[in-house]
């Protein structure tokens, strides 16, 4: 179980995450939803151990987040992060070198499904191909928790389908998946729980099918409802 206990992160002149308390259980795919800049990425990075909270704590199976929990919690950032000199094959080797739970077989299988050639240079990849590569590398790990930050960002419809398939192939009752996206509609059928983050704060967790059966509401409608009063700054 991944547990966030009153977690706050302050940067110079800005509170990015403000007192978030929540629990993520295995066997579910969670959507982490909120406008850009609401604190989703910062929270994920804290759970990945890349950033330390200013106060509060994130715990995985009752252990505070540490170097060791990186073995069980896989994180994928929105931005491309591979070294310029790497090929698609090198990325696999890199993951295999550092993660014991990485399966080269699974990686190869996913690359084949997504039409990614191992000889391609990562520098030459289109944004859609890069998105697929990042998801493939991350999901080829046999982690307990997967956190994917905006995996559908900037990719076409077909790539979206294959990314979703990869996510679904990894999901089972022992795993916790957390997917952030501003494309709420894309996640409707795939996630079963949705977490809303509003102005750096926790703004509710919902069972998505229950929203439909009990309130006759789609996830997108709920999103509009929760964020109806949030001004969308800048270009969305």
């Amino acid at each position, binding site marked *: 179980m991944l547990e966030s206990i009153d977690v706050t992160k302050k940067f110079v002149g800005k509170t990015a995450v403000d007192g978030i308390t929540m629990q993520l259980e295995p*066997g*579910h*795919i969670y959507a982490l939803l909120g406008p850009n800049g609401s604190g989703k990425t910062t929270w994920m990075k804290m759970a990945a151990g890349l950033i330390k909270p200013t106060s509060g704590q994130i715990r995985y199976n009752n252990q505070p987040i540490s170097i060791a929990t990186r073995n069980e919690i896989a994180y994928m950032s929105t931005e491309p992060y591979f070294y310029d000199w790497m090929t698609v094959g090198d990325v696999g080797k890199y993951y295999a070198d550092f993660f014991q739970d990485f399966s080269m077989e699974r990686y190869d299988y996913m690359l084949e499904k997504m039409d990614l050639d191992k000889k391609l240079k990562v520098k030459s990849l289109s944004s859609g191909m890069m998105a697929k590569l990042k998801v493939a590398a991350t999901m080829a790990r046999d982690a307990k928790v997967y956190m994917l930050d905006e995996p559908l960002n900037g990719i076409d419809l077909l790539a979206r*389908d294959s990314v*979703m*398939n990869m996510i*679904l*192939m990894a*999901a*089972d*009752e022992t795993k916790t998946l957390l997917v952030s996206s501003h494309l709420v*509609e894309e996640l*409707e*059928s*795939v*996630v*079963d729980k949705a977490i809303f983050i509003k102005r750096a704060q926790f703004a509710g967790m919902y069972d*998505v*099918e229950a929203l*439909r*059966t009990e309130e*006759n*509401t*789609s*996830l*997108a*409608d709920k999103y509009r409802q929760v964020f109806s009063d949030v001004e969308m700054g800048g270009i969305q």
Partner: protein
Amino acid sequence: MQYDSKIPIYLQVIKFLKTDIISGQIKCGQKLPSSRELAVTYTINPNTAARVYQELEREGVCYTKRGMGTFVTEDEGVITMLREQMAEEALDVFLKSMSELGISIDEAVELLKQREE
């Protein structure tokens, strides 16, 4: 796969499967994909997929053989019933839209006959 995001996804997938069974695309007694495979094929949450089979089992449309998976019932009667049930539902929808347009059942029947010719 396109879904109506306001209607529970499991009900929509159940409808897809039932239609396939009635049309014979899925045969009587045929093994169905595991709920995980179902989740990937229909791009739905694995818990939703599991619920789909639970509901279908409850309705007697399919059954689980321990350690072997889920199978479509071999009882043709169930499938005939299913067909009638779904036809009823389709009719309900049809008649509802007709009455919204102020068209009586007799008029609707007339329209259908014209369409036939």
